[in-house]
């Protein structure tokens, strides 16, 4: 415990997420829970993308692919094979991880803009493939048989169950993100980000490290996909492989500060709050996309290192606390 306290970079984000995540459990408010479900989901997605984007420096427009493929495989297990939720989650993670392994062996050879373009192509290719894939319901997707919720104590209980599962997952991602960053493996990733050729010369096995980073960043989104679509009750290609979401997750990482543990947490929470505020307040409702775009442009142009990066640069004393 004492040793944990000496690592503020780890416990600050975890405590933050825990406190925020327990609010609906204490008040029992379902509206609050739904809002926080989305918020936590984006915190977890942004933190997992950060392992690839922030540490390794590879821009991926396909992060949501892991969420989508995990969701589809898990949904299939639940609905058609009648597997329990835990098994479906494992299947979702496995599907996402296998896809990441395959992509790591192929498209991670590409660098910079070429890699970014390839991930964009993967997202579109998979979405259009699933739209044509009979067992997954084609363009209409699949709807969950409502009797499945009965195994989890009815729909109301099932929603709470997925919420707490997500909260636990979010904490796992943050711990994973911290563990990667403070490990030798993470140091290898950071050196790939700075200069891949130099890193290779210094003994970093770049292809293996990059693939590992991609697989690590894919597992949790795979599980989140299962939880999200289990809660949602239906799944369709346009929801599972939304290119817009991939880009929004990148925005969250950038907003908070890429390559930091706390950054994606703050970025995702901030962006998600801003968006729901704009969506629900009348004068901004129709202009929410423009306002979010304007905010993004200001961040890119004037604080390119995000909130945490900016704080670290301005206040040398917080560098030990904010990882």
């Amino acid at each position, binding site marked *: 415990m004492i040793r944990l306290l000496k690592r503020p970079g780890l416990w600050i984000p975890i405590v933050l997420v825990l406190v925020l995540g327990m609010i609906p459990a204490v008040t029992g408010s379902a509206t609050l829970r739904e809002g926080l479900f989305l918020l936590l989901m984006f915190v977890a997605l942004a933190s997992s993308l950060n392992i690839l984007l922030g540490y390794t420096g590879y821009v991926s427009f396909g992060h949501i692919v892991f969420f989508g493929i995990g969701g589809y495989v898990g949904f299939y297990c639940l609905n058609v094979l009648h597997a329990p939720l835990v098994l479906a989650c494992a299947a979702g993670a496995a599907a996402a991880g296998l896809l990441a392994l395959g992509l790591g062996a192929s498209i991670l050879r590409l660098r910079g803009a070429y890699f970014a373009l390839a991930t964009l*192509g993967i997202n579109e290719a998979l979405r259009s493939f699933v739209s044509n894939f009979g067992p997954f319901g084609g363009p209409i997707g699949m709807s969950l048989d409502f009797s499945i919720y009965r195994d989890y104590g009815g729909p109301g209980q099932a929603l709470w169950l997925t919420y707490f599962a997500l909260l636990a997952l979010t904490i796992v991602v943050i711990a994973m993100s911290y563990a990667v960053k403070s490990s030798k493996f993470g140091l290898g990733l950071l050196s790939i980000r700075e200069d891949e050729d130099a890193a290779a010369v210094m003994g970093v096995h770049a292809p293996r490290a990059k693939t590992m980073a991609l697989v690590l960043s894919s597992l949790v989104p795979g599980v989140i996909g299962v939880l999200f679509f289990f809660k949602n009750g239906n799944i369709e290609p346009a929801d599972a492989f939304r290119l817009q979401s991939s880009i929004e997750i990148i925005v969250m990482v950038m907003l908070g500060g890429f390559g930091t543990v706390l950054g994606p947490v703050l970025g995702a929470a901030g962006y998600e709050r801003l968006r729901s505020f704009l969506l629900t307040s009348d004068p901004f409702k129709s202009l929410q996309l423009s306002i979010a*775009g304007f905010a*993004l442009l200001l961040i890119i142009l004037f604080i390119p290192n995000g909130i945490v990066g900016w704080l670290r640069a301005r206040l040398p004393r917080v560098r030990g606390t904010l990882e």
Partner: protein
Amino acid sequence: MFDQLVASLVDGLLIGVVYGVAAMGLTLIWGVVRVINLAHGAIIAMAMFGLYYLVGRVGLNPYVALPFVALGGLVAGYVIYVVAVHRVINAPPLASLLATFAVNMMIIGTATTVFTTSPYSVNFDLGRVTAGSITVPGTRIVATVAAIAVGIGLYLFLYRSRTGRSIRAVANNRDAAELMGIPSSRILAFSFGLGTMLAAAAGALIATFFPFTVLSGDTYQLKSFVIVVLGGLGNPIGALVGGLVLGSLEGLVPVFMSASWVPVIEFGLFVVILLARPNGLFGARR
């Protein structure tokens, strides 16, 4: 069967050249400015609405309105470069990707408020041209001819004019070009404008025969990505040929299987080409 094949192929090739013009803009911006312009689709959509406005409200002939739309695209690109791109030109690629995406969000967000997302179309008819078993609307033929003319014009501009040579010099080596007295910042801004001008021209041409919504730009932007990779990133003439390849795919695939498989094949091919021949189908091997 054979007649149908030929008809589909001709149909695909005609539209492919027009797609190629939009892709030429994207690839030009990548080749010179080294930025992947994610606002390309927004410009294409805005050009469609620009044409709609000039034809429907002002009452111009579409082909008279076209140069004005293209000019608007040039100015818009210049402004986007100065406001959003210039500051991040030397930053890692992520910064410029997100900056242009932010511009995309602003344009699409504002346009959605003004036009909603319901479909629009420009009412214009040039009759039909029939050759054997093939019947094609006149607007499609004119669009193809115009697209080819734009392609030739761009080639002549890049290879024969002084500004064009400066653009190629900056694309080749910005520092060396600067040392030779070329104002590289101005050239970069102009190239960005030239790229968006091509996007605007393509958008306006497509609007003469297809209906469109505010969000149509995204579809054409994705097509442009595929074409650009087929033709080789940074190679404008390759983009025109890539457009032909994509167009004929779009024409021929539905003859053999359901049309919904077209994007699967397109994007599958896109990834394979990126992996196997990153310099494009016709580029030199590395």
